[in-house]
């Protein structure tokens, strides 16, 4: 049966695994954003934190993904459920782009704007929320976009440790030497990555300060 037919026949399973995949990527990106943006703000505000924070995130990124999955497997509670493990690993990998871009975005705000804001009597928080973050938003979004695209790819490997997602099709297809199954995983994953890149890129452009 040709590929299109195969996709139609198995569309429920493909949809289900795609949603699983989106869940893994969505949750881990969200956590990475919730942790990463404050850390980025921290290291932009107090440069002494810059080296340890960015340095740690950098080290995590250099660990090969499958190896990281392997490291985390024996950890209690995390290693017991593959989806927890995958979400943790994906979050860790998403941290660096988010932190680094938050830092760059905030540092990139025109110093005259910051000085005017401070001189006007804006509190640190007001300055951050009303001036720095909105102006840094485009750059931060760019970091999130990179994180999402990385995560979509990494989440396919997560299936190797049982976390599900579109990678499961790929691994099953490899075991059965079934190309259609492999493509049933690879094509939706590629589409997901491209859509995320395109969609977030569009949003990023709209946010760019003039």
């Amino acid at each position: 049966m040709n590929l299109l037919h195969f996709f139609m026949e198995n569309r429920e399973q493909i949809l289900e695994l795609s949603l699983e995949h989106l869940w893994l990527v969505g949750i881990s990106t969200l956590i990475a954003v919730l942790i990463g943006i404050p850390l980025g703000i921290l290291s932009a505000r107090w440069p002494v934190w810059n080296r340890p924070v960015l340095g740690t995130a950098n080290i995590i990124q250099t660990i090969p993904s499958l190896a990281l999955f392997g490291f985390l497997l024996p950890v209690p509670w995390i290693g017991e459920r593959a989806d927890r493990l995958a979400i943790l690993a994906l979050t860790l990998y998403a941290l660096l782009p988010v932190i680094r871009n938050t830092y760059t975005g905030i540092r990139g705000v025109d110093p005259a704007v910051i000085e005017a804001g401070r001189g006007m009597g804006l509190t640190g928080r007001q300055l951050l929320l009303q001036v720095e973050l909105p102006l840094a938003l485009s750059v931060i979004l760019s970091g999130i976009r990179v994180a999402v695209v990385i995560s979509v790819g990494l989440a396919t490997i997560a299936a190797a440790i049982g976390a599900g997602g579109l990678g499961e099709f790929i691994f099953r297809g490899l075991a059965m030497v079934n190309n259609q199954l492999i493509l049933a995983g690879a094509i939706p994953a590629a589409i997901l990555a491209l859509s995320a890149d395109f969609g977030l890129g569009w949003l990023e452009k709209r946010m760019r300060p003039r």
Partner: protein
Amino acid sequence: MERIPQAAPVIEFRNVAYALPNGKPLLAELNLQVESGETLVLLGRSGSGKTTTLKLINRLLAPSAGEVRVNGTASAQTDVIRLRRSIGYVIQDVGLFPHFTVERNIELVPRIEGWSAERIHRRVEELLQLVGLEPKIAERYPHQLSGGQRQRVGVARALAADPAILLMDEPFGALDALTRDELQREFLSLKRRLNKTVVFVTHDLREALRLGSRIALMEAGRLVAVLPPEEFVRSGDGLVAAYVQAFADGCELVANRGSV
């Protein structure tokens, strides 16, 4: 320039010194008083400490020694946010918020201070008129404005909450000569209408003579002289005279000062 005699100075520097964190001194033994309603010009070359002095007033910098007093209270004892909100601040690069419209830029402090929407709206209209801008400029974004227009918005923004004190750090320095002239003239007319105490930083003697009620010359972190313009150009003090000399047509300026 009228000077309103007042009992207590609005701003006072008592033996103030400022040094960088690495120890390098930028100001030493500064004693200065700014009277209510006057326009005090801090004049000097780069590195003379004039901008540092200005920033000590709204506490963007804190003195290493001595005391800065604003309206009779030591600024170290005042809540720094309240202090800054009661002082208007205009800088050379303007620093308009690029993601806000002109209106949002101007209304920021009143909005934070919780003014009613009606009051804010009226104030913005009033200010735009005051600085000579068309009302419909309110919806534009900073990047759509010329340099001169931007600085006018900067001034309007600084005046939004109606502060009694206005600090200006070489506000017209980045503009072309024609626009600068225009804005200087408008500054003078504004000063006549509003009764504010202004501290104005510049390195341009002509601007100082034109706008200031008193000129404070600074050199290498020290106050050299504080004199009204007429006395300044005739002063025998070495440094003052050198400064005047550097501006060749200094004397003519005194003669022309009347025509504003």
